[in-house]
Structure formats: structure tokens, C-alpha cells
């Protein structure tokens, strides 16, 4: 028998109201803001788009046989070029370091000034801004766009819509097209792309980036930030009550209400409930509801509010970069407090400096020549018919410089040791000269033979390589194995 007693409700619960589990996107019509943050955003947009489109065309002479593009991720050649820096695949940790540096930079900026990245620098924001600018050019500002969308189809509406989407697609294509310039020689790809001779991957990526740019900046916009991007979720862990966020100062603004000219400001807040902050918001939110997931901190509501405050002759800054704690303290009648230097900001800054120093030190001190000696594991040693013992090695010489080199090779450290390189003759002095190509890796098979008398167990010797032109010396101590203990 079951011990569970079922409770029968006195009256059955009301039937759930029929409702939609899926929300239709509400079109947002952001109004054009005027002010210092809008200006900063225009300048930042021009700068970042300029960098994106122009950098692939910069040249950097590296000598013959090597790409002369200043910034290039050369997958076919297995190299990454950044001006004077040439990264080999085995040095991908520099790229990892760059990523870590960027992440820490994001953390630091977020804990100091909130979502500056989202508001000014994120490609989603920059391209959406550009797309809205185009939209405004064709359809007018917020009110005109809303009117146009409400109208039935007409010639006027059609050409504006078609024009807008055509320019959007053109921008999208140029965006996708510029992306592939970073992976192939820009001049070559720009010529071959239009005559159908570029690599298939170039068309593929240009098409993908064209599609995503058009969809994300044209039709999805704020939905990308709200539904697709993980950063709004992560930033909640990075911000705190001391971070400067775009904030509605409710201590000053409330109680809000319409204000007629000449009325007293006594006993009321400065917010006149004009909703300008809502109308300029590209995310379609009300900043006066407080910090929220959707807010990208683009600061356009600050511009909109300041403009209104000037009109009603109240001090600007009702919406401003401010901290939660400062607003709360002012509301409680205490003086505001700002603390930019906090444990987390110090930690992020210190980590950034440490990693930057480490990377700079690594880059400045990295050699252009590398010697790798790989001992044969099978057989570990070979006893020759005369009783002598021989070990085989593969010598990998990595030359990262633009000059071909010639390295002289000798070995010492074990009595009676003899060195032999397959395919090369030794000089009388016992030296062997190994050519190494520029920007390449050369492999040599070498044999080291030790007489029966001095061979036994594990021993060590040194391979000495010297650049015959510069005298640069590389020693490599390696092991020699023989039967015995």
C-alpha cells in the first residue's frame, strides 16, 4: 500500500491560458542621437572599419620567396606574418598569449568601465551601426521609418527597401571579401577572385561572411547580443558595484514625471519621462530599469538625455557613466565614492603586464636558428662487425631567417668518436658543412660511431654547429647508447 496521499484540490486548477511560447521579434527603430558619445562612436567606427579594410594592403618586404604582406595568416605556407614578426606553427603559443592578453584586457576594461567592448568595439555593434546609418539614409529617422513600415506597399516604399538591402548586401560582400584578404596575398586574391581563379576556400569564406554580416547586422541586430552572445552572461561575473556603467541616476531622477515649462522642480526628480533614452536605444530597452543583460553600454542614451536636460535647463548627466555604489550612496544622503583601484583591477592589470613582458621577452630573444637532434629509437644502437658501436640520429635544422646558411658540424665528447652525415663528405679537419635553406627546415641523417674500447652504457657527446658566415654557435648535448651498463 502506498504511503503517499494524494491531495485533491477543492476546485480544479484553472486551465492554463493559451499563450505563445515563441516571441516574434519586435522591430526596433533607434533614433539618431547627437552628442559626444555619438561622435566618439562615429570616429571609432571609421577607425576600426579603416583598419579592417586597409591592413591587408600594407606591404612589408621580407626578401625573395616570402610573402610581402604585412599581416597575413598563410595556411598553405604554415606561417603567420605580422609586420616584422614571423610566427611558425610550433610558436602558436604567441597567438595563445595574444588571446589571453585580449581576454584579460576585456576583463580589466569591463571591471573599470563596464561593457566598453560591446558598446564601441564589437564588430556586431560597429556593423549594426553602419547598417542603421544606411537604413537612415534610405528610410529616414525613427519616426519616418515607423511610418514607412506601417504603409502599404508602394513605389516609394519599394525603392527605399530594395536600395537599403542592396547596399547592405554590398557592405556584407565587401566585409566577407576583406576577410579572405588576411589569408591570401591581397593583390593576388583581389585579381583572381573576380575571374573565378581564386581557391575554393576563398569563395566559401567570402560567402559565409557575406551571409553572416547581412543577417547579423541587418536583420538580427540586438538579438545577436541577447540570444547568441555569451559575453553578456560572462560580464555579470566581472562587473561589480564599483564598475562604471551606463547608469540612470535614480537618486536624481525620481520621482519622474512630465514637466511643463515654468513649473517648479521642487519635490520631484529631474526625469521628465520624455522617453528619448528609450527611443535612441539600439537594444530597445529602458535604461531607467537599471543594469540589464541587454544593455551594451553604447552610451547613446546619455547623449539623448543630456540634450533634453539642456532644453529643460537642468544639469546634464542624469544618465551617465556611474557606479551602483555611488548612486546608492547619494540616494542615502552620503557622498559618492569611486574606487578604480580594486583587487580585481590590480590583478588583471598585473597579469596583463606580466604576460606582455613575457611575450615581448620571448619575441626579442627568440633565435632565428634551431637545432633539434632526434635519436633513433629503433635500433637504439648497432654493433658493427669490427665491434664498434654506432648510433643513428636525425638532425633537424630550422632556419627562420631570410638568409640561406651553411653550418659547419663537428662532434666531440667521447674518445675516438667518429661522425658521418649521409650524402655529405667531411673535410680533412673532420668538419662537415651542412647547407640550410632560408625560411625552412632541413633534415640530415647522421651516424656517430664510438670504438669498442670507449663505448659502454649511456654516454653523452656534443654536436657543435657553427654558422660559417656569422660564427653563430649552437651546441646540442645528446646521448649515445651502447650495450653494457
Amino acid at each position, binding site marked *: 500500500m502506498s504511503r503517499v496521499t494524494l491531495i485533491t484540490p477543492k476546485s480544479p486548477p484553472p486551465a*492554463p491560458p493559451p499563450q505563445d511560447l515563441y516571441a516574434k521579434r519586435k522591430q526596433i527603430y533607434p533614433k539618431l542621437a547627437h552628442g559626444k558619445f555619438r561622435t566618439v562612436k562615429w570616429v571609432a567606427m571609421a577607425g576600426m572599419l579603416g583598419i579592417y579594410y586597409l591592413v591587408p594592403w600594407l606591404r612589408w618586404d621580407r626578401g625573395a620567396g616570402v610573402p610581402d604582406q604585412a599581416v597575413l595568416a598563410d595556411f598553405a605556407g604554415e606561417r603567420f606574418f605580422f609586420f616584422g614578426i614571423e610566427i611558425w606553427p610550433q610558436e602558436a603559443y604567441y597567438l595563445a598569449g595574444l588571446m589571453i592578453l585580449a581576454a584579460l584586457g576585456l576583463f580589466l576594461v569591463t571591471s573599470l568601465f563596464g561593457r566598453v567592448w560591446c558598446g564601441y568595439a564589437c564588430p556586431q555593434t560597429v556593423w549594426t551601426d553602419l547598417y542603421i546609418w544606411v537604413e537612415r539614409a534610405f528610410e529616414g529617422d525613427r519616426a519616418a521609418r515607423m511610418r514607412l513600415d506601417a504603409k502599404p506597399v508602394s513605389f516609394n516604399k519599394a525603392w527605399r527597401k530594395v536600395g537599403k538591402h542592396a547596399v547592405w548586401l554590398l557592405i556584407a560582400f565587401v566585409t566577407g571579401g576583406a576577410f579572405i584578404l588576411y589569408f591570401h596575398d591581397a593583390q593576388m586574391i583581389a585579381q583572381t577572385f573576380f575571374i573565378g581563379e581564386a581557391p575554393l576556400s576563398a569563395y566559401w569564406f567570402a560567402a559565409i561572411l557575406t551571409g553572416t554580416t547581412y543577417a547579423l547586422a541587418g536583420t*538580427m541586430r540586438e538579438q545577436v547580443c541577447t540570444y547568441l552572445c555569451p559575453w553578456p552572461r560572462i560580464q555579470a561575473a566581472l562587473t561589480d558595484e564599483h564598475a562604471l556603467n551606463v547608469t540612470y541616476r535614480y537618486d536624481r531622477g525620481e520621482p519622474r514625471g512630465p514637466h511643463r515649462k515654468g513649473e517648479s522642480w521642487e519635490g520631484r526628480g529631474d526625469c521628465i519621462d520624455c522617453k528619448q533614452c528609450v527611443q535612441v536605444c539600439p537594444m530597445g530597452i529602458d535604461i531607467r530599469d537599471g543594469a540589464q543583460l541587454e544593455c551594451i553600454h553604447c552610451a547613446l542614451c546619455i547623449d539623448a538625455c543630456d540634450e533634453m536636460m539642456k532644453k529643460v535647463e537642468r544639469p546634464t548627466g542624469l544618465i551617465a557613466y556611474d557606479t551602483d555604489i555611488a548612486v546608492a550612496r547619494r540616494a542615502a544622503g552620503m557622498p559618492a565614492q569611486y574606487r578604480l583601484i580594486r583587487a580585481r583591477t590590480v590583478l588583471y592589470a598585473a597579469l596583463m603586464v606580466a604576460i606582455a613582458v613575457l611575450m615581448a621577452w620571448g619575441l626579442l630573444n627568440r633565435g632565428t636558428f634551431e637545432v633539434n637532434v632526434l635519436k633513433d629509437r629503433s635500433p637504439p644502437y648497432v654493433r658493427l662487425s669490427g665491434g664498434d658501436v654506432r648510433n643513428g640520429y636525425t638532425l633537424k635544422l630550422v632556419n627562420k631567417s631570410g638568409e640561406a646558411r651553411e653550418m659547419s658540424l663537428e662532434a666531440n665528447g667521447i674518445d675516438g668518436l667518429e661522425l658521418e652525415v649521409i*650524402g655529405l663528405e667531411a673535410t680533412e679537419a673532420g668538419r662537415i658543412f651542412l647547407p640550410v635553406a632560408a625560411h625552412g627546415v632541413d633534415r640530415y641523417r647522421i651516424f656517430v660511431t664510438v670504438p669498442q674500447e670507449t663505448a659502454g652504457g649511456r654516454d653523452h657527446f656534443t654536436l657543435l654547429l657553427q654558422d660559417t658566415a656569422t660564427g653563430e654557435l649552437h651546441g646540442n648535448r645528446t646521448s649515445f647508447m651502447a650495450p653494457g651498463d
Partner: protein
Amino acid sequence: MSEHHKDIDQPTGVETTGHEWDGIKELNNPLPRWWLYIWYGTIAFSIGYMVVMPAIPALPGLGTNTRGLAGQSDRIAVAEQVESLRSQRSASGAALLTASLEEIETDRELQQFAMASGESAFGDNCATCHGAGGRGAKGYPTLADDSWLWSGTLEGIEYTLQHGIRHEEDADTRFSLMPAFGRDRLLERQQIDDVVNHVLSLSGREVDEAASKRGADIFAAQCASCHGANGTGDRTVGAPNLTDDIWVFGGEYRDVYNTVYNARNAHMPAWGERLDEATIKSLAVYVHSLGGGE
């Protein structure tokens, strides 16, 4: 619709779905509608995919899976890739065919190509017996040392690879037979003991001097014709040098006794029947480079 009142959750201000369990209400935070459309899109895509690509597994009576309109088959694709790789290689392979073995070894580019293809062919075909890197095993000669049964020159190695050793299907195979002195009653057990003592003395081992002395006469009569009067061997018949310390079948007394009693006469297949000429040349260059090349 409007006769139902909306149930709003007070703390969040979000509408509930009306579902309630012990006072816990489910909030309705609706998904964006395009999300739903993407899901519909994936369903439509999967139908198209099933039509175009092989999707329905072999059913009884159908024999094989459905091919789809694209006729895609991974097996055929792999075969095509192998074929295209072969034709790509044949360009470099053609250079190998025309070049002599010496030219291959001295031309750095050809040598690197031959070494790479030789190494992989060695791993596929030779390492089973001769070990990785030609380290050898009991009964299978070490290819990395300087002791050769037949020949250690490039041409010699190529010939061995081509025709094999005691591979009777190949008329040109390297061939010789050592008699099984004990099994075939050519020598008494005592005589074999004597001759083994003598053979071991050739490489400087400590042996029974009297036996070795007796064995020297037997060696001269029975063995010297192939292994040479001094026991230094004869490569024309693949007779190993007995004066060094390298033993294919082991250098202990009982190993050598066993060899004399039963004879060994090891086999190696003729690879000319199985591998193309460019591969054989690559293998010859690779084996020659292992350390014993002459």
C-alpha cells in the same frame, strides 16, 4: 483568449505558463520565433539531405544502402583519392625511375622523396621481420649494421629486394643451400661439437682448444668452400662472415650447434612481384641509408 486572466509572477514581472507544482510556477520566457524557424529549417534540410546523400541503411532485400541523388560513397571517394595520390606520386616516381640509384642518393630533392616513400614502404612491408629502422631480430638480419650476407651496395640491395632470397618462384633469386650436417648424417655429433668450437674461436671466443683444433680440419673440408678458409664468408653465395661478432641466428654455442646440425637457409620474398619499381628503388635508398650502405 482574453477571458483568461494573465498570471504574472510578482518578483520578476514575467507571465507564467500556468503550470504549478507545490507553489512553484513555471515562468514563460518565450524563445525568439526565429529560433523555432531554424529548427524547422534543420528538419527541411535533413529531408533534403536524405534525398541527396546516402541516408537509409541497407534494408532486407535492398542489398545495399540508398545512394542518394549525389551518389556519394566514401569508399569510392577514398579510392579516387588514392588514385590521384598515385598519379601525383608518379611524377616524382617517374624521376626515380629514370635516375640511377647513385643519382637519387646524391640529388637532395630526390633523396628526400625516396627516403620518405622508402620509410613508409619499409614500415608496411619490411619492418614485420627486420624491425623498425632495420634493427633486425633473431633469424632476420639487422640492416643497420655493416655486415651483409649478400650485398650492401645500392644495386645489391635493390637486387635482393627485387628477387628475394631463396624465393624459388623467382628464377633470379639469390640462392644457396647449406647442408644440414647433423640431420643428414654428414657429420657425427662429436664432429659437430668440434667444428662449432672452431667456428666460435674465429671471433675470438674462449673455446675448448683441443676440440677447436680437431674442428679446424673438419672446417677446412666441409665449410671453407663457402665460408672461406679463414671463415670470412663469401657474399656471392650469401655465406656469412664467421669472424665477426654478428650472428643472425644467435652466437651462443647451442645456436651455432643448431645451425650446423639443421642448417638455416632463411627466405625472403621477391618484392618485385608486389611492389612497383619506384618503391623498390626508394626502399633500396632507404635501407642503404640505415647505416650499412656500402
